[in-house]
């Protein structure tokens, strides 16, 4: 039913080749940084989409999982010299467990109520981390310098390795999401989004599938968090746990098109350059002009294209047929 056409495979292959060649073609670190941020937020959006877009659990608290991932690997590295790749998996597991713990009491919350609970959860995590001495409290953690190597998850001479790792992570999350979307689980999550009654009447264990979606989403989000920590080499609660990150993740997904595998990727590709460029070009003036442009754009999209850009492209594609 959802098998790709030859043309779609060709387009995907061409895009991948272009992305693989990109680091060779550009000079300077800003274009690299920009693409890494696009990939990062695309991955965060894809992960959000599994619970928000497919299952209708509008989480405005993804920063909690992002921060838990970043903090777990960084704490293990700074305090116990645990390799960040192991920390990456540990962070995923811790985030998934946290997701399960918060998911149980929220298992019957829907719509706005779920969104409010997710904000509360993320704020609790942020405030707690801000005061938790063991992990540096408000001062945060600094990732110790190590030799440049893939094993150490650390590179000094070029951003290219980070670029390729992040691209790999994004492809992994896309793989997970499209597996979820096309399998029984995807059907079940969409039924749950429609309503718990209609899902139950089809024999769907609503709580179980919601939990699975939250945990998968949290795991992937935490992976992105570890990447971010290894990339920026410093983290504190204000850089990974704040609400604007959660909002950005939702925006990327909604703009691109929630409930479609590629939607958040499109959203990140549009939104991140705008937010990064307006921040760099206009942010220093202190007038908030960057945020005004950014906000206007979001309003226009939500009014005129609530299906997201991907939804718009699809309706055009359907008309052509």
């Amino acid at each position, binding site marked *: 039913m959802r098998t790709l056409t030859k043309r779609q495979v060709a387009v995907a292959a061409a895009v991948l080749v272009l992305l693989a060649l990109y680091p060779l073609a550009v000079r300077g670190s800003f274009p690299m940084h920009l693409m890494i941020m696009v990939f990062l937020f695309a991955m965060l959006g894809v992960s959000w989409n599994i619970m928000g877009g497919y299952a209708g659990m509008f989480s405005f608290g993804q920063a909690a999982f992002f921060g838990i991932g970043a903090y777990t690997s960084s704490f293990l590295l700074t305090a116990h010299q645990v390799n960040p790749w192991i920390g990456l998996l540990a962070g995923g597991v811790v985030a998934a467990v946290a997701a399960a713990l918060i998911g149980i009491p929220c298992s019957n919350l829907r719509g706005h109520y779920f969104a409010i609970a997710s904000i509360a959860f993320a704020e609790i995590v942020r405030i707690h981390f801000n005061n938790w001495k063991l992990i540096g409290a408000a001062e945060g953690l600094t990732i110790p310098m190590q030799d440049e190597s893939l094993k150490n998850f650390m590179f000094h001479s070029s951003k290219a390795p980070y670029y390729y790792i992040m691209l790999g992570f994004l492809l992994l999350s896309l793989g997970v999401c499209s597996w979820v979307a096309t399998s*029984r689980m995807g*059907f079940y999550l*969409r039924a749950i989004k*429609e309503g718990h*009654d*209609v899902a*139950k009447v*089809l*024999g*769907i264990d609503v709580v179980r599938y919601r939990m699975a979606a939250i945990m998968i989403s949290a795991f992937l989000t935490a992976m992105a968090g570890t990447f971010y920590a290894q990339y920026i080499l410093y983290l504190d609660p204000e850089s990974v746990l704040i609400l604007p990150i959660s909002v950005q993740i939702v925006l990327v997904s909604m703009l691109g098109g929630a409930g479609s595998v590629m939607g958040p990727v499109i959203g990140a590709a549009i939104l991140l350059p705008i937010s990064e460029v307006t921040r760099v070009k206009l942010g220093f003036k202190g007038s908030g002009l960057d945020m005004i442009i950014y906000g206007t754009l979001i309003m226009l999209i939500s009014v005129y294209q609530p299906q997201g850009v991907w939804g718009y492209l699809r309706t055009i594609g359907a008309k052509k047929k």
Partner: protein
Amino acid sequence: MSASALLDVRGVTKRFGGLLANDDVSFTVSEGEIVSIIGPNGAGKSTLFNCISGFYRPNAGTVRYRGRDITRLAADRICKLGIARTFQIVQVITDMTVLENVMTGAFLRTARNGAARERAEEVLRFAGLHEKLDAAATSLTIEDKKRLEVSMALATKPSLLMLDESMAGLNPVELRQMIALLRRVRESGVTLVIVEHVMEAVMELSDRVIVINSGRKIVEGPPKDVVVNPQVIQAYLGDRYHARG
């Protein structure tokens, strides 16, 4: 209360605050039957459906299915055991196509896409919706939506199908088609319990009719006996009207 009853409802009572929605309702359904539950608006028919299908927990009484107590089971577990139902207000998955909706039901018995699709197509052919496979669920007429909802329920391979007012709002032609569909469902080996106001369908389809009024079962019997029963006429039309005996 034969041991062979497919469904055995005993003394089901459901209260909402001071309101007694179901009061000590008992009845059984045997395999292969079509049983209709009728009664005036607000009599407690839908509540009874919800008590049987696991959406409500009755305050008292038991529901047995194939001899097994299912009173406290969750709705999805009950569906898995083989009791499917529809809702009074049609419930389909709005952002899915017709086929995807029915596949979602079929996934209860298989994890494989291919098998679910096959089952869904088979059910849709059976229900006469096969030509609208790829239509968006929201684009269907009310009749087709009701067919779709029945198809989704059938895709879960139930032994017992409970339909809540599947005839309401249909025109005479659509009504004939829906009655024919339910006949075919019964012939395929599925037992039916229907809540219905459309008496034409009730009279034609039912082996037995159960009449509920103010939460209580007042009469049970073959359709032609029930409609002339003085208690039933009184329940629908009030005290001033009585059947001429």
